[in-house]
């Protein structure tokens, strides 16, 4: 094995490069990033970083010297344009080509954009990159009324920070509740109640007709029912699109993500996909294909793939987990909720500490917890044991 080329220098791509060197991988490592800076962590971008950017350097996964010392050829601002599988080459925007023995797609996702009258990039803000967070922070300092479109995790986290910064906040959501694809109704209601108590307004089941813009600055968001909600800052957090273009261009199979097997390998035995862009069958979901967007998933897949490349591991099967901090609420999810799960509440929502247990045939599939880190950690251990029990080949190592 001579050269591993990694496309995408985010959480997953960077971790893979780090883990390969930790395992004394002897070959070349080329890490291609399309952002103009060192790889960094995204979670603080919708939380602490919006209030205080002083920890900006601490967001970096590794400092610049690390890449030099460990002989990792990290290239910022170097988007990959296409893959030639027969020649095993990646073409860069610069026209240069880089050959690979193994190729790893760690391209993540991009934000879905709002395509309505007057919705241009200048008037509507998005949040994914550090630069976007930086510009959002500056715009928050000028703003008084904020409309957040989309009550997913990022929209809700941003709403909390904006409210804590003293802004008037309205969250507009098509569905009838917040974070509806990821958490139970009980959890949504609890979190919404807290936002309301802090002064956030919600418009659920609402459609947006367009925007009032003056001199490239949003003035109001117009709803389908005729009302218009004043806003001098609009953040759209309306979901994501997996970055599968390169894979598709190379004839690899995709389905809302790049399809890989349990070794995180695509149809091409020398091409892998990891992190937010990868769709894979998870043993905890009975082999159902899932695509997860979490630090855990990106990091664990990267560590697994490093082991697999070194011939030390065969199947990826870590326990998925996720968190979201809003005000002083800590929401955590262990496992993967299934479509037919039974939900069971324990603990006391009034006291602000409770959990919702998801199970199928009496077996725990996922645990949502509110301000219960111990219960969350114990559930992860439980789920690890389940992996062992269902005979997952490498579960003991998880």
């Amino acid at each position: 094995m001579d050269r591993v080329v990694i496309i995408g220098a985010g959480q997953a791509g960077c971790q893979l490069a780090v883990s390969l060197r930790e395992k004394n991988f002897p070959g070349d490592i080329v890490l291609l990033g399309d952002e103009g800076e060192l790889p960094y962590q995204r979670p603080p971008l919708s939380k602490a970083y919006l209030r205080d950017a002083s920890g900006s350097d601490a967001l970096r996964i590794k400092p610049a010297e690390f890449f030099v010392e460990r002989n990792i050829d990290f290239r910022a601002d170097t988007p990959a344009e296409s893959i030639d599988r027969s020649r095993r080459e990646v073409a860069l925007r610069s026209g240069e080509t880089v050959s690979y023995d193994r190729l790893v797609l760690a391209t993540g996702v991009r934000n879905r954009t709002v395509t309505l009258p007057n919705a241009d990039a200048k008037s509507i803000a998005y949040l994914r990159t550090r630069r976007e967070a930086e510009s959002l922070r500056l715009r928050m300092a000028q703003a008084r009324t904020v409309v957040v479109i989309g009550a997913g995790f990022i929209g809700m986290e941003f709403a909390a920070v904006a409210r804590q910064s003293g802004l008037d906040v309205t969250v507009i959501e098509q569905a009838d509740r917040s974070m509806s694809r990821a958490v139970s109704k009980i959890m949504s209601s609890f979190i919404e109640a807290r936002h309301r108590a802090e002064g956030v307004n919600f418009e659920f089941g609402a459609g947006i007709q367009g925007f009032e813009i003056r001199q490239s600055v949003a003035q109001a968001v117009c709803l389908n029912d005729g009302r218009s909600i004043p806003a001098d800052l609009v953040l759209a957090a309306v979901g994501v699109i997996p970055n599968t273009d390169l894979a598709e261009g190379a004839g690899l199979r995709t389905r809302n993500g790049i399809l890989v097997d349990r070794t995180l390998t695509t149809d091409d035995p020398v091409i892998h996909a990891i992190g937010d862009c990868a769709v894979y069958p998870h043993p905890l979901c009975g082999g159902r294909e899932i695509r997860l967007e979490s630090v855990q998933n990106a990091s664990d897949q990267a560590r697994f793939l490093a082991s697999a490349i070194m011939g030390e591991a065969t199947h990826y099967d870590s326990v998925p987990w996720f968190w979201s901090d809003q005000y002083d609420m800590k929401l955590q999810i262990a496992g993967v909720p299934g479509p037919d799960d039974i939900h069971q509440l324990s603990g006391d929502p009034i006291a602000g500490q409770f959990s919702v247990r998801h199970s199928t045939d009496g077996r725990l599939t996922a645990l949502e917890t509110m301000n219960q880190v111990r219960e969350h950690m114990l559930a992860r251990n439980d789920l690890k044991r389940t992996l062992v029990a269902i005979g997952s080949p490498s579960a003991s190592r998880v």
Partner: protein
Amino acid sequence: MAVITFEYPDGTSRDVEATAGMSVMQAAKTAGIDGIIAECGGDMVCATCHVFVKSKELLDHLSPPSITEEQMLDFTSERRRQTSRLSCQIPVSDALDGLVVEIPRTQV
């Protein structure tokens, strides 16, 4: 400004200049200290920023761990000791000048 020393299990160490307002974890990440992984970026959910505080007086000087930190310390990769803290929960102040923390073997 405070100088914080990170000690490794093999006896080597590195001094880092930390600015008040950051956490000890952020000071370590900024300086690229190996072994302070801090995968969650300071949200108290990963426990990969675990350290042992070696200066007794300074340990007593720190505000005690929150309930969440206390609970997470039970799930660190190297077993907790009396001196265990999550470095993301230690705010740097001038009073911490001379702080020595040890990085757990399991994190390096």
